[in-house]
């Protein structure tokens, strides 16, 4: 059963570039980027119990840094990527210190406020960010001299990064540190009494989530070759959060499935239905009512029940 599911996932990931047209290959690349982003948010929301409504900060800032460094300051893509990630991680470390003064709703509000500050800056500091016009004319990197300009080439690149991200985060949550994180989520007082430092565990996770958010941001700006303040908006954060919750927070596959769902609705359904947001709302209503823990745990439970009945 497990290898069967694995084979299906591998087929879904490997087939698009072979059969599908450019539109679908591009859509698949976007799903991979959204999946990395949702997975990084899931470290906070699902495994850390820290619900953030400002995760777009890390995607957006990394994307803007890379855009500015390459287009304005003439850095190569490699150096720019490294600096963007370092800068974003440093920002996550700083934001973490502020946001982790609170937990729960307070934490959520602080992350929201911080991301709004960045969004406002991106809009208003138009001499740096070009404001509402965004930064255009960006290029994709060419790792090892391989051009990523074709949809298929970019898809392979995004897939490699996504697989690395997934494996790294899977290892992270099953590690000693990941177990400590889950412990702090469930019983912070007990964990402190056992010798764990809950604040430090949350802070390190916050930074690590910021790191993968930055990686998603780089892919995002490479894909679009364009960056606009909406990448930093609350909508962007909220879509990722919806993806995490719909797919199943605190699971590894859930956020990827949820992110794919949001993106498909957004890109595909919006072509047919003008009010795709309404459709999105209905789909979420359905998920929350039928599978309150998310799609992946919900389907898992359903399969278990069906197998239990057949045997």
């Amino acid at each position, binding site marked *: 059963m497990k290898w069967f599911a694995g084979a299906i996932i591998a087929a879904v990931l490997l087939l698009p570039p072979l059969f599908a047209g450019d539109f679908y290959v591009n859509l698949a690349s976007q799903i991979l980027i959204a999946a990395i982003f949702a997975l990084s948010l899931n470290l906070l929301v699902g495994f850390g119990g820290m619900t953030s409504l400002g995760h777009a900060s890390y995607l957006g800032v990394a994307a803007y840094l890379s855009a500015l460094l390459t287009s304005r300051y003439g850095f190569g893509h490699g150096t720019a990527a490294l600096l963007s990630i370092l800068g974003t991680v440093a920002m996550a470390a700083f934001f973490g210190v502020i946001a982790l003064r609170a937990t729960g709703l307070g934490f959520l509000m602080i992350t929201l406020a911080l991301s709004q500050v960045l969004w406002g800056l991106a809009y208003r500091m138009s001499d740096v960010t070009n404001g509402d016009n965004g930064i255009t004319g960006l290029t994709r990197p060419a790792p090892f001299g391989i051009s990523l300009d074709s949809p298929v080439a970019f898809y392979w690149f995004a897939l490699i990064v996504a697989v690395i991200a997934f494996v790294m985060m899977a290892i992270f949550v*099953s590690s000693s540190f990941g177990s*400590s994180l*889950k412990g702090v989520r469930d019983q912070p007082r007990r*964990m*402190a*009494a*056992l010798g764990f430092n809950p604040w430090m565990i949350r802070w390190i996770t916050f930074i690590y989530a910021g790191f993968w958010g930055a990686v998603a941001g780089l892919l995002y700006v490479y894909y679009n070759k364009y960056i606009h303040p909406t990448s930093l908006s609350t909508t962007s954060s909220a879509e990722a959060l919806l993806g995490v919750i719909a797919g199943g927070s605190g699971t590894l596959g859930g956020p990827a499935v949820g992110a794919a769902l949001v993106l498909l609705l957004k890109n595909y359904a919006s072509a047919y239905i003008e009010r795709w947001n309404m459709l999105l709302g209905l789909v979420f209503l359905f998920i929350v009512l039928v599978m309150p823990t998310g799609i992946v745990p919900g389907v898992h439970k359903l399969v278990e029940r069906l197998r239990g009945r057949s045997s």
Partner: protein
Amino acid sequence: MTASSSDLALDVMGLNKAFGGLKVTQDISLSVRPGERRLIIGPNGAGKTTLFNQISGDMRPNAGKIKLFGQDVTRLAPYQRAHLGLSRTYQIITLFAGDTLEHNVTLGLLGLLPSRWQMWRPLSSYRDLASEARRTLDSVGLLQLAEHPVSELAYGEKRRVELAMALSQKPRVLLLDEPLAGLSDSERATVKALIASISKNVTVVMIEHDMDTALDLAETVTLLNYGRVIVDGERDKVIADKRTREVYLGA
């Protein structure tokens, strides 16, 4: 002659804590020698658990000092006190319900090890931790349930997991907050035997209402009422004291 505080396992001096106008700890001083078995009794609301919370660091006192083996820990965070050899159990069971017993106890072991920061190696690959956790579970008679999630356990068994988690840390000072609460007679006997078997290297301070069982385990007794120490001393003297009868035992 009072012992100097460095000879004491736990030395509480002039502790005060108030919630608004409610004084829950009033000038409490306690001296517990290494290896001592101290029982803390008192009516409901006497401030017993609040005292524990201040010793463990969950609450900051408004005034006073707490020393652990001569070291002032009053300003230290709970996790720092754990690293100095302090462990506790909770009156209200505080376990990781969805995780196995083995995982629960493993967390207890991990809390004091540098490998708790390890991010690149699955926790399940630490075979030595798992076998140590199983040894501890064996010592409280729950080895056969090691693979089961805590949520499947009976109440009395959960109490023993609480104990196993604290014991796995090999504490120097162990605080037990009503370890017998809500147990059946047979479970009571089991847990009593367990507490009695704790090494004399461990100093045990215990809050308990079940006098029949707890008095057998105690060498010294402290009676609290309205946040104050009323009587404090050798078990038999405290029991014989007329104030103990008035406040707690009844006529």
